[in-house]
């Protein structure tokens, strides 16, 4: 099936040591509030392949139907987990993924609204943690999903399958409460600029109540999420910043100054903005670890 007909897009990369094919397709339009994007991938690495996963305002679910992948906490490099299929709660620290050999899998990036609805758990319980999919969905359901994705004929069929799976499960999910959903939307739309004081004033509730309810349903408190949103907004524009442009970029994205920007950047990635930009991999391959 040609890419145009199925809407499937493929990004490939081939070098001596690494090759990958990253396959994307837009999720069903009804999933728009809940799913940022889909990415199927098939990779081969002859030497260990490390990638840095910076924090973002979402929750990735990874279903592999091949060998496992190692997840390393960026701030605690000794903390290493080996996963086949898992969900990474909202993080305000980066993680490093590592594998060698072959990887094949499917990644769904949930919005924070979607993650709550999909999981129906207290989100702060899984913040800054990776949790096996079986522990969240039950071993049988997680196994069925991985099996069905593995057995599908091609990527278009896998995207169809994921659309159906998510529409069904989200349809049975519990919505986020309107006050928290509204606060989250304001933070997202302002790239983290709206203050907690302003949000709680607008909602006519106490700061404490807002923080508590937000923390439980989103995973981290509003201030932490605002920091991640500001950072995510800044790295979207990182390509455009030339040497003189860093300060403008920082201020334009809501940082007090370049020092503030650099501090946050190090906190979230362990690198300077320039180092981070230099480590971007070609062909949509993410960030080198």
């Amino acid at each position, binding site marked *: 099936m040609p890419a145009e007909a199925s809407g499937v897009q493929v990004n490939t990369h081939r070098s001596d040591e690494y090759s990958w094919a990253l396959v994307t397709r837009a999720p069903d339009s009804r999933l728009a*509030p809940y799913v940022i994007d889909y990415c199927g991938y098939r990779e081969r690495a002859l030497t260990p392949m490390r990638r840095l996963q910076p924090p973002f305002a979402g929750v990735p679910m990874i279903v592999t139907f091949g060998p496992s992948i190692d997840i390393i906490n960026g701030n605690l490099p000794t903390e290493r987990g080996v996963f086949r299929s898992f969900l990474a709660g909202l993080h305000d620290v980066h993680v490093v993924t590592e594998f060698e050999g072959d990887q094949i899998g499917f990644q769904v990036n949930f919005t924070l609204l979607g993650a709550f609805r999909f999981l129906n758990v207290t989100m702060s319980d899984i913040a800054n943690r990776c949790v096996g999919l079986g522990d969240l969905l039950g071993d049988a359901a997680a196994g069925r999903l991985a099996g069905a994705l593995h057995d599908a004929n091609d990527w278009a069929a896998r995207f169809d399958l994921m659309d159906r799976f998510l529409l069904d499960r989200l349809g049975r999910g519990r919505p986020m409460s309107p006050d928290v959903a509204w606060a989250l939307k304001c933070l997202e739309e302002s790239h983290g600029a709206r203050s907690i004081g302003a949000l709680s004033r607008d909602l006519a509730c106490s700061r404490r109540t807002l923080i508590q309810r937000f923390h439980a349903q989103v995973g981290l408190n509003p201030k932490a999420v605002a920091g991640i949103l500001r950072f995510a907004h800044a790295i979207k524009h990182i390509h455009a910043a030339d040497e003189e442009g860093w300060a403008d970029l920082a201020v334009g994205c809501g940082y007090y100054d370049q020092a503030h920007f650099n501090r946050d950047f190090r906190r979230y990635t362990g690198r300077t903005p320039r180092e981070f930009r230099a480590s971007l991999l070609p062909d949509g391959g993410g960030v080198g670890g």
Partner: protein
Amino acid sequence: MADKAKIGVPNVFPCLRYDDAPKAIEWLNETFGFEKQFVVPGENNTVAHAQLRLGPGMIMTGSGGKPDSTNPWATERFGIYVVVPDIEAHYARAKAVGAKIERPLAETEYGSREYSARDCEGNLWSFGTYDPYAEA
């Protein structure tokens, strides 16, 4: 939900619509002793959705809107919202018995699966999955 029913967490909520919701909410608070749990702002000084509490109970309120043939709640001043665990079965039974369905079962913009129907004398009801008392 079965456990909740035992300990008596409310699942039936009166819903009131006002022309001037911000003013009405203040009035309800001052006069009848309600407390704002939260008020979600709408555009142009309207209220998209508010939950007010008094003792263990709660009412939902907000601003009325322009008449909308797909949503009777835009103009209805009073109705009842009920949280039900198995919304599909509940909807199927209401249809089978012949209740006048005003809004078929669908996802609302705030993420609840809901339907609205009239009772045998024309009062408006909504049944849905959004539970204001859910943990978190």
